[in-house]
């Protein structure tokens, strides 16, 4: 199988602190990979490096054979990587539909002149963006549909905001989805649903998924492969069973017992 995503010796320093340290790892097309590790292990920093929010200090990131280093976040999105955020970051004053329509931005091209004169091509494109957005929302059942389409995103409940954020990422027509703790703050029922949803995203929509998750039930359910990180480096990789029994991983978690027990319980 061809490698969809690959990074080699990726490092990121913040002054003296090395948040990501010579991290090498790859994802094959159609895989669901979980990235685990204690708080501060550098998981979210890694996401920020991949999406271009932080410039990498050294190393390389390849996606579909193209080097991502030095590209702007919007160019990376255009190439086919979309993400969600750990603390949900929607556009709260925009409607639910608009939030998802924004995701289509890089797949459409009408500009100012088109918007003012509204030729046929503009109207068709708008229609396409709209239908596509509704299609993404429909993926989550009736929760985000109907009267809700034209309500501001800030009117949604917490769990629905998480779903909307995933819908927005889906609508960029990405190949690779980066989900940053999709189950954080959800109740047990919703957590099971999210795990089910991640599977569905791959099986029905063909996304390749890299997910950061603390909830081990979700990790166990969804992952083809698990990568564990600590202090910015990869400490283990393999199936859930392999990683869960790896002594480095156990050490990384139990070494900070006070904090991590809460995280695991969560």
């Amino acid at each position, binding site marked *: 199988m061809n490698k969809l995503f690959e990074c080699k010796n990726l490092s990121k320093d913040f002054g003296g602190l090395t948040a990501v340290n010579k991290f090498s790892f790859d994802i094959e097309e159609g895989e669901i990979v979980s990235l685990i590790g204690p708080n501060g292990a550098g998981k979210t920093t890694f996401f920020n490096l991949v*999406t*271009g*929010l932080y410039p990498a200090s050294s190393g390389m990131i390849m996606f579909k054979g193209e080097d991502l280093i030095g590209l*702007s*976040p*919007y160019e*990376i*999105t*255009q190439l086919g990587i*979309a*993400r969600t*955020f*750990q*603390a*949900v*970051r*929607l*556009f*709260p*004053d*925009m*409607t639910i539909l*608009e939030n998802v*329509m*924004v*995701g289509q*931005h*890089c797949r*459409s091209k*009408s*500009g*100012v002149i*088109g*918007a*003012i004169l*509204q030729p046929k091509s*503009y109207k068709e*494109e*708008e229609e396409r*963006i709209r239908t596509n957005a509704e299609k993404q929302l429909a993926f989550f059942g009736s*929760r985000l549909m109907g009267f809700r389409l034209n*309500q*501001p995103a*800030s*009117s*949604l*409940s*917490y*769990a*629905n*905001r998480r779903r909307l954020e995933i819908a927005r990422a889906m609508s*960029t027509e990405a190949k690779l989805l980066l989900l940053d*703790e999709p189950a*954080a*703050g*959800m*109740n047990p029922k*919703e957590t099971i649903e999210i795990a089910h949803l991640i599977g569905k995203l791959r099986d029905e929509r063909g996304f390749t998924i890299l997910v950061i998750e603390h909830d081990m039930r979700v990790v166990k359910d969804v992952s083809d492969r698990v990568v564990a990180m600590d202090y910015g480096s990869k400490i283990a990789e393999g199936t859930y069973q392999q990683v869960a029994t790896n002594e480095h991983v156990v050490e990384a978690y139990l070494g900070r017992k006070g904090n991590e027990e*809460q995280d695991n319980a*969560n």
Partner: protein
Amino acid sequence: MTDSNTINTIIERKHATKTVLIGIYSGLVTLFVCLIGMVETFGARDIIGGIISMGHTMLIIIAVGSGAVAVKTLREDMSTPGATINKPAFLVEIFVGVTTGLIVGATLSIFVFATQLVDMRSVLINVSPGLLEMLTLQQPASQVMMTITVLGSLLGGIGAAIFNINPRIRLPLVLGLTSVVSLGMLRDMLKIVLSREGWPSVLLNFLVKNQGLSIAGATTIFATTVALVIIWPHLPKIYDKTVRIIVTYVPKVLQFAVSIIFTIALTMRVFWFIGISDKDLPILPSCQAADSSPNVDLAKCISILSNDVSTTSDLLGTNLATLVSTIITVSEILVGSLILLCFIFAIWNIRQNANLTDTKSTLEDPNNALLIIAKRNISAFFSVALLVSLPILLGVFPSEVLLNVGLYMLMGFGLNIVVGMAGLLDLGYVAFFAVGAYSTAILTSPRASIELGMSFWAALPIVVLVTGATGLLVGAPVLRMRGDYLAIVTLGFGEIARFLFLSDWFKPWLGGAQGIILIPPVSIGNVQLIGPHKLYYLIITGCLIALFISARLRGSRVGRAWMAMSEDEKVAETMGINTVYYKLLAFGLGAMIASISGAVFAAKLGTIFPHSFNVLVSITALSLLIVGGIGSLPGIIVGALVLVGLPELLREFTEYRLLIYGAILIFMMLSRPEGLIPRVRQTRELDDQELSQDAWLHDKNEANNGSSVTVT
């Protein structure tokens, strides 16, 4: 707060303290307006001729207001959860009102008494005999002290009682009185408008008496307002029915014919109006020379105009025959119809976009669809007709006010793209206005350094492009900044622009402090647009085009990108939006729209100086957005009318203009921070029940606390 609400104590101690405080504040306000001379100046002008002056009205409003505010505060305080009695008794309220009124009256009477003992004039120069005469109603001071105090308490009581009147009576009453007072204030404007050709002179004689409104006039105004307020809720139904009848019973051909005839008639009328030779209006150049700031000194114009109104109307009559033949050439009719089509097209489209929900219901019911389209066309037609005929109806001076409103409104539309849509707080917007004005001047004035002497229309595209480029130039260095930092930097850019225009460096090209003179007026065909009543058409066309562009952009892919960027720049970028491009686009487009406003400004004045482009222009443009409701397009129109139009109308009270203006701004922001006409989305959001249950927006860290409540 249990047994304190018994009859014995009547009112709780803390409420009593508050009431007294409100009374003292109101008393201080009364003293303040007396001492700064406002009461006396306003006293020279009658609301109702010979009966009540504006100065007295002001004092009355303060006294009544103090009572009303005290009662309102009391009610709010008492409705806090846990109180045994949530609403104060009627008598308690009256008592509170009377107390505050009493304090106001007493303050005033002590002041009057004090003036008898000490000569305050050496320090407080406004304590003139005229003021005392007003306060004492020309009676010996010792006798009126009691009267003033009693009157004060009475008015305070009335203020309190207002709250206990049934709202169905209260609303017409209050609005009726308000309209009498405001029309009384605008008496001069009323006089100028009504003495024009076309308005029956009976109306003028009936409404206006030498110093103010006539009693009959005031009564009529009051009655009309009351009647209007009462039938207002029924109007949509009546309108609906009328339109339904027209749609069902009047044949399509007839509808079409009538609208065509109306359109042609209106076009002809407007062209006849625009075509009146400018030499016939000798007053205008002097108006222009009076002052070169955006607000031409209208006080002077008023005096000139009121003498010349009859001359103007004479000219309209006698020169008719010769004018009609020369002016209405085929080319102008063509151009005119095009402009008119633009209007109709613009308004029709905006309404179409606004009524998305309507369009959905049309699909289900074809009859309904016809009705909605008819309503849309009719309202579009009448809006255009009204806009087009305003200068014809109102005359030169009100057109001048409207022209200034238009200049700022156009800037408002431009700034709205930058601030309202893209979320980039720009305090140096005047720079683009100035670049627009200066580049127009350089390209068109034969006296300018390069002596091009182009026509306005040939210069306009160049001006727009040049200013757009300036927008990019200013935008580029500030790409990484947001919010407050951006505001400060752009503020600096605005000032730099002014100093560059003023500098000796550029003096050979830009004229330094002397500016550029002899900018030719705009001409269409062989008609020169001299005078605000003609330039009005130019600026209103500009405004409508800007409105149209803004409305179209807002709902488009570009508008969504801007909105996303203004809400969360980082996320917008990871969602595939090139924020650098969209920021520059916003700066460029905003600059282009400001440049059109600047071009019209230059052509209007004929001369431009650097000092016309100070920071106040930027601030006014920004505050009209905020007062109107940021991001709301109707808000810009209302904001411009309130913030630019109102001060123009208050020009007679120049000294107090900024005081009133500032007071209105503070009051507005305290009582309606979301603006006069907030964006629909914002109100919806504020009303939303779900929002109150969920503090997500205030506490983004929730995501990390697994304990947060989740509701689906």
